[in-house]
């Protein structure tokens, strides 16, 4: 090989490397610019509404009535939040109690009954009844509940306007989603576990509660987080099935205050801030879990 050729080759390589370099830099610069632009856009589109709500919950009544983004001339944080908590005989405090109780009760029941069903449905997949049951569960995911007939049923068995009634309705309405997630997860547990437990003399009930149920923990926690947000944020079902001032849930306080506080937007905004805190806390701690749960069923179809 001649010297010239080698020099030509090496300069070619050098040229290529430097081209790669500058290309790499310009590519990264471009990505940075795109990232920065989307940061600004997302701030405008998503943060501005939050800022609007929070800042207005700090203002006095007159300033909040202007509905502006302006900085408050004086802060009324404690006064506003105290006023909204004690309004209508501590309605919001009672509502927090009711919503928490409803959420805890319905999740406790939901988790146990759906895990039991998911287990048996998966192990008996392909049996005679399974396609009918699967269809009924799928229908429950899609078709909205029939409102007045549900009230009629609740009323006939004396559960209308009761915590028991609304809890059981929430369980029924969230059952399809929970059962499908459990069923999919049980499919990943080998049947050998069941068999060895049976050889050791476990019956079906002990097998499920002592061995299977603890193994379902990852999916249980997903269901707990997702359903607690759904039940806590539920507006329609308490509106229909749990009416009455004593029965208020947090979402209904917003609705009540909306008509009563037509001139005190600051208090309405304070209410919004307060009831958004629980989902925010769950989001901070369980971000990954929530996203995984919401996409798990969806992508498989």
């Amino acid at each position, binding site marked *: 090989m001649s010297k010239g050729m080698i020099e030509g080759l090496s300069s070619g390589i050098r040229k290529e490397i430097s081209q790669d370099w500058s290309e790499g830099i310009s590519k990264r610069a471009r990505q940075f610019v795109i990232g920065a632009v989307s*940061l600004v856009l997302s701030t405008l589109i998503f943060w501005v509404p939050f800022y609007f709500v929070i800042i207005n919950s700090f203002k006095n009544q007159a300033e909040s009535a202007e509905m502006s983004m302006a900085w408050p001339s004086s802060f009324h944080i404690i006064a506003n939040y105290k006023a909204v908590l004690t309004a209508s005989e501590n309605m919001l405090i009672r509502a927090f109690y009711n919503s928490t109780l409803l959420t805890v009760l319905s999740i406790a029941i939901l988790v146990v009954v759906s895990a039991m069903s998911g287990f048996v449905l998966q192990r008996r997949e392909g049996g005679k009844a399974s396609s009918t049951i699967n269809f009924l569960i799928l229908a429950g995911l899609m078709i909205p509940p*029939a409102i007045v007939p549900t009230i009629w049923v609740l009323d006939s068995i004396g559960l209308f306007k009761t915590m028991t009634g609304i809890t059981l309705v929430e369980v029924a309405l969230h059952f399809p989603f929970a059962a499908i997630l459990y069923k999919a997860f049980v499919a990943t547990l080998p049947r050998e576990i069941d068999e060895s437990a049976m050889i050791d003399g476990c019956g079906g009930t002990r097998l499920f509660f002592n061995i299977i149920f603890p193994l379902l923990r990852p999916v249980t926690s997903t269901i707990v987080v997702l359903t607690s947000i759904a039940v806590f944020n539920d507006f329609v079902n308490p509106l229909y099935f749990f009416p009455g001032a004593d029965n208020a849930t947090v979402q209904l306080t917003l609705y009540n205050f909306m008509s009563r506080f037509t001139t005190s937007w600051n208090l309405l905004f304070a209410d919004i801030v307060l009831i958004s805190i629980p989902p925010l806390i769950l989001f901070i701690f369980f971000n990954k879990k929530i996203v995984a749960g919401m996409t798990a069923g969806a992508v498989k179809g």
Partner: protein
Amino acid sequence: MTKITMRTYSYAFLLPAGIIYFVFYLLPTILSFFFSMTRWTLMDWDFIGFDNYVTFFSETALSIGFRNTIVYAVVTCVLKVVLGLLLGAFLTSGIMFKSYLRSVIFFPTLLSTIAVGIAFSMMMHPSQGMINTSLAALGIAGPDWLGNTKIALLSVAFVDVWKGVGIATVIYIAGITAIPQEYYEALKIDGGSSRDAFWHITVPLSRPAMNSVIILAFIGGLRSFDLIWAMTKGGPGFTTDLIASIIYKQYQAGFYGLATAGNVILFICVSLLAFPLYKFLTRSEVHL
């Protein structure tokens, strides 16, 4: 083995859930077909055949809800499918601040719909609202977002998309990250551009995710109630009423039979539109 199976996986395990699901969901759904054909006071009923359905479709105040529901479902669904795909593709590319952006887009889905509705109806106030004052600063006269009968429904649909696009996005992200990287590498070797990658790899191979988004968004749109109730209560007049808000209004007015007919119509809409859509989409799915 079969004998052990029968005993171990006893159908008795289905009973607790089965009873709750039957009594509080399936039974009311079955009953709704009967009660939708009655004049009903909860204590007593008169069978009146299809009169409630005739009323529903002959009175404009009611039939408009049917049309609005379809429009609302289609608009929110299309926007979520398209924006979700773009955001999903964007957030799986090499851009910076990815996880922050993902969280910001996703968080609104966890907020109370009523709270979001109230906040946006303030911001959409025609003269004082933030949106129109900002537009005015730019010299644009903003419309009365919720008071103009032509655009009120679309304004609410826009807020629905703002709140719900996060779910669509994370579903797409899951779908797109499941596409094997080799496809993109092969395309790069063949000299394809990133636009080719998007149209010829990302779009066709994220079809399962897209199908889920279509189904979820469409059914969600058909069933929608909270947001319209928080923002317009069906107004101005009844121009933004959806089937679900009509059910509530008729229920409040004591027309239980008519409210239940609304429920059955919603039932039929979902069954006639969503089930075939689901079948169609899953049949034409591309397999990896």
